[in-house]
């Protein structure tokens, strides 16, 4: 079968413009080249790239090794989303007669389809992805943990460090300091390990700016992870643990409490008070920053009703909160 593959070509010796934001960042240096390949119906995107490199253009740079979704080398953008090229079938990704592959614009490019993974590994190191053993070490034996405690961690252990989640992370795309989905999922794996001695300290660190609260909850990482790690789910567990451990002096926690209070008291969201309460009433800078938008919306007639109405049948909601509200009771 004939397949058409459009490849984003880039060579750092042709310097990019400094333009922001991605995906325009390297537009000056990136060019798209179209190749035709002849491969069977079940062939993968990586098969097509290897075919191009072996028989058409040996200068094409592509990173791959195992070809079976184990090594994690061949994550790249396929039609604008991160995927492993070795498990992506050409037939599933051919849109309007072609598949487009390129290096993800949020990662530093090296050449063609090869991006620099340094940010990925730096973030990984930043979360201290190792056990800080509890003292004292059990005499004459190893640390023992119940099976159930480890089952909770299995999902993350499946990570092959391909970086697909980071490549498609919407928050990372505009804030390179964000710890990102892979590192935070790894962070959860160690924080929730009963053998780790630094749980509290970890949660404190991860609650700081550019940590767990900088995830925008877009589910891109859940969607793109080829191993079902669901990084977002692990980040949400860290948020929950952090709040329960008392690290609550942040907008994320205030937002959750203000949200719950509003639903408990009225059955609905009170948009008028949610924002100021989330910023923190004494956070004058944030309050002032939000004023122009509030003013613009009021001028357009988009201000929520000044008197917030309660829903009928509120007793049902209050009863639910009384039974399962937990910390929001």
């Amino acid at each position: 079968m004939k397949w058409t593959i459009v490849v984003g070509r880039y060579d750092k010796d042709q310097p990019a413009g400094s333009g922001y934001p991605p995906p325009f960042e390297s537009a000056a240096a990136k060019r798209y080249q179209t190749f035709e390949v002849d491969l069977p119906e079940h062939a993968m995107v990586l098969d097509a790239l290897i075919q191009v490199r072996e028989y058409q253009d040996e200068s094409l740079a592509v990173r791959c090794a195992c070809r079976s979704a184990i090594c994690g080398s061949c994550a790249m953008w396929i039609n604008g989303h991160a995927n492993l090229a070795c498990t992506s079938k050409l037939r599933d990704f051919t849109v309007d007669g072609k598949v487009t592959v390129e290096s993800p614009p949020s990662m530093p490019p090296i050449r063609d389809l090869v991006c620099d993974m340094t940010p990925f590994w730096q973030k990984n190191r930043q979360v201290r992805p190792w056990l800080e053993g509890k003292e004292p070490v059990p005499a004459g034996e190893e640390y023992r943990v119940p099976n159930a405690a480890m089952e909770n961690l299995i999902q993350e252990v499946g990570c092959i460090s391909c970086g697909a989640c980071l490549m498609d992370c919407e928050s990372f795309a505009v804030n390179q300091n964000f710890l990102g989905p892979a590192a935070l999922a790894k962070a959860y794996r160690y924080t929730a390990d009963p053998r780790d001695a630094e749980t509290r300290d970890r949660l404190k660190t991860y609650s700081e700016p550019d940590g767990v609260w900088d995830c925008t909850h877009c589910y891109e990482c859940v969607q793109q992870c080829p191993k079902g790690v669901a990084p977002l789910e692990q980040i949400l567990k860290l948020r929950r643990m952090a709040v329960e451990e008392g690290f609550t002096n942040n907008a994320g926690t205030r937002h959750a409490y203000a949200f719950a209070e509003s639903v408990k008291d009225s059955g609905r969201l009170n948009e008028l008070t949610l924002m100021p309460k989330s910023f923190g009433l004494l956070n004058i800078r944030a309050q002032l920053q939000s004023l122009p938008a509030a003013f613009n919306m009021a001028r357009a007639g988009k201000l929520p009703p000044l008197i917030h109405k309660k829903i009928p049948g509120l007793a049902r909601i209050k009863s639910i909160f009384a039974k399962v509200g937990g910390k929001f009771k």
Partner: protein
Amino acid sequence: MKVAFWPGCVSKGACPELYVSTHKVADALGLELVELEEAPCTGAGVLSEQNPALADSLNGLTLAMAERQGADLMTICSTCQGVLSGTQFHLANDPARLARVNETLASSGYEYRGTTKVKHLLWILVEDIGLDRLASLVKHKLTGLNVAPFYGCYILRPEEYLGLKERPERSTYLEQIIALIGATPVEYLGKSKCCGFPMLTMNREVSLKMGGKHILEAKSKGADVLVTPCPLCHLNLDGQQPDAAGVMKQPLGVPILHLPQLLGLAFGFAPEDLRLNHHVINTKAALEKVELKV
């Protein structure tokens, strides 16, 4: 066709134009909206992340209310859709979780049996009403208007909650409707990405950059307007757009339309009746392109 209608908090708060235009379009379609006035906020994913049992019970109650109506539950918000679809998915596939919800709901007068289907207006338009019927109601083709679709995360991801594995075409419905009313869909990467709203209070600059980036990309591809099925995306993309332009250090000025507003224009409703004169980003120039005045 009758649906149990969950309007969401924002369409009754900061986006009244969505509520009004939904009713206009529903009237034109003969879609009977039975509003669930006693249903609670979905928690928008914020409550479920801190307390899954609480969110399950609140949303289980809404699903039970729709079940009693014997009708599908219709949302007009990608976020409500995502949260309710998630709850629906878990309660339909996990009997123990459903039992816990019903235990909590015991004194509420409701019990959820797990049968409610949750559908966004966008899906109902294409799957239940059908493109042919929609086409027959178009009175004013929006020829020449370049419309960039903006889905919002929670109507697309995670796929298994939202039926996209069985119906992958759900990720193309906006484009289909845009083309059907004579306008031109704008193809750009940002259409399925995040508006940044969930982070607005946590990291304002990042949130505004996220939304601003997608508006800028759509604009560079020739978009006159964006259309969204999510009022939370609307809050960030329209309400915060002047601030986003400031953070981006670039002019933006792209009007953001709610899905029923765009359809309402094609059905011949006056822009004022769809409250298109109540947007932060002025819609005048875009409407003039299709010979409409506001």
